[in-house]
């Protein structure tokens, strides 16, 4: 590959999930912001093209309350409806059927959670829901345990992306088990996104360096002191991590190897 071709390939480093093509490898949540104005500004700064959204009852008491769509346009951003708060397969399937009717598309994020305090993915319930959704024509991006066997099984069932956690949702602990994430990435034939746990920019970069297709995060931006600035940091970190992954890091050595030549030293 000559230098010019290499440069061109870097410019077109997009990724695809279920026929949807994205240039940004950062997927962001739209929850936990102080206001819808702040949500819109942070998402704009993140450069994300896909955003997760929740499905909830309309507030009948205040029907003129501003709606997310008025601030984060579904024409501009691909909405990825989630099943946050669902603890059974039935709840998750019911929620996403409503989401499909509200939005008119099939690409969804499935998450079936265990109890607090960890909200760890409930994998038996996740398998059950994934099977029902796939049978019903959904394209399922699935939040899952950092378990290579579970991730492989979800892929074989027909999930369009697997999304293992870096750490519990909203914990900001970063990647607690990089080896397992790497194992999942190495085996996968569908996109792998690290979803949940990322707390700051270096952790997003680390996820990309491991070879993920993209990262999904929400609290790391929304709960930063300056969310818009953190959104910018995450955008840069994901790009940096992706470049580093493609560039191929140098090997780790357990001894020094001087960078400057010894030839020509003054005597």
């Amino acid at each position, binding site marked *: 590959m000559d230098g010019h071709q290499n440069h061109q390939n870097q410019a077109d480093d997009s990724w695809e999930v279920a026929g949807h093509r994205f240039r940004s490898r950062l997927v962001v949540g739209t929850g*936990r912001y102080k206001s819808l104005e702040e949500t819109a500004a942070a998402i704009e700064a993140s450069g994300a093209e896909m955003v997760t959204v929740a499905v909830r009852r309309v507030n009948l008491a205040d029907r003129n309350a501003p709606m997310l769509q008025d601030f984060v346009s579904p024409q501009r951003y691909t909405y990825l409806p989630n099943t946050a708060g669902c603890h059974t397969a039935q709840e998750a399937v019911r929620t996403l059927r409503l989401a499909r009717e509200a939005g008119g598309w099939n690409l969804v994020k499935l998450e079936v959670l265990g109890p607090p305090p960890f909200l760890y993915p409930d994998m038996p319930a996740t398998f059950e829901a994934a099977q029902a959704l796939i049978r019903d024509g959904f394209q399922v991006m699935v939040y899952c345990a950092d378990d290579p066997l579970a991730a492989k099984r979800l892929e074989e069932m027909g999930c369009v992306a697997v999304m293992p956690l870096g750490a519990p949702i909203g914990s900001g602990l970063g990647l607690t088990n990089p080896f397992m994430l790497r194992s999942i990435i190495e085996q996968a034939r569908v996109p792998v996104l690290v979803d949940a746990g990322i707390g700051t920019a270096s952790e997003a970069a680390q996820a990309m360096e491991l070879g993920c297709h993209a990262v999904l995060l929400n609290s790391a931006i929304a709960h930063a002191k300056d969310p818009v600035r953190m959104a910018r940091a995450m955008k840069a970190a994901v790009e940096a991590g992706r470049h580093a992954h493609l560039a191929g890091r140098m090997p780790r050595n357990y001894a020094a190897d001087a960078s400057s030549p010894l030839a020509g030293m003054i005597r």
Partner: protein
Amino acid sequence: MADSIEITINGETRFIQRDATVADLLGTLSLDVRKVAVERNLEIVPRSAYAATHLAAGDTLEIVHFIGGG
């Protein structure tokens, strides 16, 4: 209240006009049909069927929309 029936919307009891359709109800509630989805007695009501779906006493409806979430 012969002309009205009792239904449950998002967990709240409401009285609506007898023979009202889902489209009528959304109009009364001033909800933008393009931004919501409706479930009636655990079955999705497709948007195309709002005008033809008449509500009955005792119906349980869920009307949802997208909000911020991670």
